[in-house]
């Protein structure tokens, strides 16, 4: 790789890589909302705070409980697209590691089913009246499910990278080669979900500000103002802490990589992305600091942070691919993408993508112009 990723590969390979990276970023974006959201709910349940309104009844926790089922639907649906393209780009690696994990890989599905239904439980009126210990169990259960799923994807990914150990992994059944590398990589993702969730939730909170009456009419307008302010700050702190932790864990993961991978990451393929990742992370931090100085969430800084976050995600996803490509067989990916680009159907896909984006926009337009709900 002598050029910035994904340029100057065989054009077919570049094409599939770009699609893969973009669809994966969308998956990560929505997945982050549920993963970080579920951890946030654990925190609020464990530490309800001493104020008059417990943290579980504060705006963010309400919002998360309300929207996490949909976000999970979204995360799963969004996951299907990279799942498709990973099978074009890295078919042998992906299938082999799936097979080596065997039933341990299949467990992901029932665990996600359980988490999905638990999200509906946590959202229900009934669950909010449960004793603390039950609510705590519930929120920890949900977060554990998502952490487990993230763990499985990372374990699968790492195993798919190390073809040399496949026969031995098959014989011994051991799927994890280095616990340290696995934990560092996994923690990088987990920490990275916080900045992502923070920004999504900030936009939502901003939209919710005028609709609090539907939540709880007993809380006064002045109290809401204070609560919202506190939540904004918390989101900012969570985001900055997430970026710092992700950076630290990524450094830890770096130490486990081979020199040949380092060479690629700081070489032509990777260095621009490293710079972009670091710069856009700093931008996010600056954005949050500027945001702290404002009385409410303001459009300009939220937009800045959002753009910086998306840039950072694309950069990190690209670095993730550079690591994989420097360990994988480039010729293999080139040959299979070249062959795949011959089969046809891309234009069909484009037409229906445009059509369905239009229809989705129409759906959203219809519900946005609805009559506001009358508070009971």
């Amino acid at each position, binding site marked *: 790789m002598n050029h910035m990723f994904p340029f100057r590969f065989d054009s077919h390979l570049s094409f599939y890589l770009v699609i893969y990276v973009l669809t994966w970023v969308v998956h990560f974006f929505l997945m982050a909302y549920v993963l970080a959201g579920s951890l946030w709910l654990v925190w609020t349940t464990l530490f309800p705070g001493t104020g008059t309104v417990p943290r579980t009844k504060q705006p963010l926790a309400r919002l998360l409980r309300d929207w996490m089922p*949909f976000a999970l639907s979204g995360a799963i*649906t969004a996951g299907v697209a990279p799942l498709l393209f990973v099978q*074009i780009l890295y078919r042998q690696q992906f299938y082999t590691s799936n*097979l080596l994990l065997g039933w341990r*890989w299949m467990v992901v599905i029932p665990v996600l*089913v359980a988490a999905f239904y638990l999200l509906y439980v946590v959202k229900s009126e009934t669950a909010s009246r449960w004793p603390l210990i039950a609510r705590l169990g519930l929120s920890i259960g949900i977060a554990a499910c998502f952490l487990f799923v993230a763990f499985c994807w990372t374990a699968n990914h790492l195993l798919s990278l190390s073809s040399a150990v496949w026969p031995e992994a098959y014989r011994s059944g051991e799927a994890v080669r280095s616990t340290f590398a696995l934990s560092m990589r996994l923690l990088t993702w987990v920490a990275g979900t916080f900045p992502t969730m923070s920004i999504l939730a900030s936009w939502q909170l901003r939209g919710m500000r005028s609709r609090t009456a539907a939540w709880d009419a007993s809380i006064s307008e002045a109290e809401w103002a204070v609560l919202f302010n506190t939540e904004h700050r918390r989101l900012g702190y969570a985001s900055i802490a997430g970026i710092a932790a992700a950076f630290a864990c990524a450094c830890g993961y770096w130490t486990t990589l081979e020199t040949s991978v380092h060479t690629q990451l700081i070489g032509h393929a990777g260095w621009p992305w490293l710079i972009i990742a670091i710069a856009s992370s700093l931008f996010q931090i600056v954005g949050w600091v500027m945001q702290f100085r404002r009385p409410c969430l303001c459009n300009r800084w939220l937009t800045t942070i959002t753009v910086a976050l998306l840039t950072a995600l694309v950069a990190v996803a690209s670095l993730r691919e550079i690591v994989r490509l420097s360990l994988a*067989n480039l010729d*293999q990916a080139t040959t299979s993408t070249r062959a795949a680009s011959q089969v046809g159907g891309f234009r069909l896909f484009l037409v229906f993508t445009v059509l369905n984006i239009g229809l989705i926009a129409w759906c959203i337009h219809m519900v946005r112009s609805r009559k506001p709900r009358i508070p009971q």
Partner: protein
Amino acid sequence: MNAIYPVNDYGPLMPGLVMAAVAIVHVFLAQFAVGGGILLCYFQWLAMTGRSVDARSFVHGYFKVLVLISFVLGALTGVGIWFTSIQVSAPTIGEMVFHFHWIWATEWTFFCLEVVAGYCFYRYHDQLSARTCLTLLVLYAFAAWMSLFWINGILSWQLTPGHWLTTHSIVDGFLNPGFWPSLFFRTIVCMTLAALIGCVVVNVIPDLSREQRQELINKAAHLMIPMLAMPVLGAWYLYSMPSDSRSWVLGGSPAMMLFFMISVGASLAIGGYALIGLWLQKLYINGATASLLLLLAFGATAGGEFVREGSRKPYTVRHVLYSNGIRPEEVAGLRFRGCVSDDPFPVIHEKQLPNEVVTIGAKVFRRQCAVCHTMEGSNAVVHLTGAWDADQMRMNIAKLQQTKPFMPPFAGTAGELESLVQYIQWVHAKRPGSWPGTIDESNLPKIQRWLDEAGTAPAGNSPHPQTTEAEISIAPSVALGSLKR
């Protein structure tokens, strides 16, 4: 050459059975989701046009069920089926993804629409005008049905690739001979399932009088009227099948015939009940009966899926890929080179096997037979060969495609076949600690003769279309063949 993948041993269950279970649950739920969309549009329309006063409360109650079942379980078993397919036959799913990834990607854009339209309705229906509700429901139903449309093309291609075999055009592959009959057939199944679940739901909506329930149930039963067309469509589908596959279903394979009859019988029972009871006599149907009919429908789906999976044998993609991941054009080469020398994966309990001969036999079994057989569990080779002596075993395995036409030809050397026979006999003999460590060379010439007599072609009676240069150049096996493993 395909990549060689590790094979998991799921104990007495062969992977195909696990696959069948996930597939049946998923197909059942997904068809319910598709039919549910249609039913909801119908009821919303009934409510809006004043044809049924209670239809609105039904729409809102039913949609909750639809979301909780189909959004959650339907979507996740969909991913589950993908994961299971990889476990059962990575080469097959790889082949399907390779040829149809843009169709799949197109289907995915409809998933996105389905999720958004469905969720918009679910969250906001009580704040939206009846018209907007209908629009959202129509979009939801359209998206759900389109996902059936796309996947149906890929699945029917596996059994009836038709002209695609010579043209390799995606249009020929997608609009293959089985496409239309199975699309119509499945759509009717979807509507029937939705109507049956509708009957269950009507029975649990609180605060409805018996008359109100009866009216809703009779309206829901309208969705079962298309079942009248099922016999014709079923016949059309059978007609579109390759003749050998059709003959398995119609008696050639007792197991497949049994499942086919279950499917037909259950459908007849539901159809008869729907037409006579609900439509002509306007009968009431209580929750228990509705659930029973639903159970029958599940039986019909299960039988149908089993037949669909089973009738493809010995292929997973007709004329392109055998169930065990070997391609027809590879067989001749493997007879010469052998099928275990390039398999990088060791035998898991190698230490428990007495020697190299048996170990090779175990590898041959794993590569060629394990998708459809276990050694001692379901469809166990040890039991199937129980009455045979060694020479019968040698001959029947060498002529595998003639022994049972739904098995692929044996794809290994005479020595490997002998090792396989040794492995089977060793298990027969209750896995003794010591076993002859060398092959009796004198058996090899006759095995070779039997292999040659059977040839490398499959048994099927429908001809294999001529392979052209152009098609080879884009087949992934060849594309990947030049790569190092």
